[in-house]
């Protein structure tokens, strides 16, 4: 449901860039930490509703969900955290801390050229 707020901010950045390049944005690549719990379909639907009748209508999204990283307190290594096996992938220790979720980033926009 918070996808609506995210879509609004995204639309603001994308439409600003579309004006700057005077071109239609056809695709946007986004990276996002897993704990933002962003649903790709809801995000796209919310965006299309906002972008209707603008040159941003129809932008496709490619969303890469970044795994949660953890740092082992025993061997100091970083590893990908998975709920079904919450342990260090190197030394199997279960004493670790989760690192902050990756931010939501608009990485690049693909514009249509004539």
């Amino acid at each position, binding site marked *: *449901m*918070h996808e*609506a*707020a*995210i879509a609004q*901010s*995204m639309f603001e*950045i994308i439409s600003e*860039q579309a004006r700057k*390049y005077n*071109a239609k944005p*056809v*695709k946007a690549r*986004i990276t996002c930490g*897993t*704990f*933002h*719990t*962003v649903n790709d379909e809801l995000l796209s639907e919310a965006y299309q509703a906002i972008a209707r009748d603008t040159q941003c209508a129809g932008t496709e999204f490619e969303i890469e969900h970044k795994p*949660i990283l953890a740092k082992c307190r025993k061997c100091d290594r970083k590893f990908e*955290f998975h*709920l079904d096996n*919450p342990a260090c992938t190197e030394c199997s220790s*279960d*004493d*670790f*801390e*989760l690192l902050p*979720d990756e*931010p*939501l*980033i*608009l*990485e*690049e*926009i*693909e*514009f*249509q*050229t004539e």
Partner: protein
Amino acid sequence: MNKTVKIGRKILSANEEYAQRNRELLKQKNLPCLNFISSPGSGKTTLLCKTINDVKDKLRIGVIEGDIETDIDAEKIRATAAPVIQINTEGACHLAAAQIARGLNALPLDKLDMVCIENVGNLVCPSAFELGETAKIALLSVPEGDDKPAKYPALFAKAHALLITKADLLELGPQIQFDMEKVIQDVRKINKNIRIFPVSATTGKGMSDWYQWLVEFATAVDR
């Protein structure tokens, strides 16, 4: 051939800027700020009202009440005589940092020892929006079921403390299925340092441990 342009911008940067300003204001006033997050009906308002009354000799608490459109909860808080600011999100499922900035601005901060935010009832969305709070407090009520931390880990991973509310219902015996050990284990897997308090706002059981933590947290220098 299409043209690809690198952007590399944080999509929620506007919210983060407000959150940072809130954080700075709270720091300047030396005020701890707790963001209470849970599903609707987990007992946030009830817990806040009882807490405000029971610790009023030690902590003066001000409240920012987030609700989709009513001020029913704010009225309940007002009855405790604590200062309360109502924020209506008009449909949005979470509070945003700009709304908290307005709330902080309207509260008598110099007469408070702590600010508590009751976020919009929702177990998922609010934890993705930083408000500038000092800590998040998660609530999970017994009737919601013991599988929630495993299903919705984001909030439980970020929270400083977890209140397992309506613990009085555990005494119903076999009528209610809730495995406290499982909840504690699931939560500890993703958050080693979280404090967990089973509480009942109705019977008062477990509340004194929560109050003790709250007062210590509010007065700690290195919170």
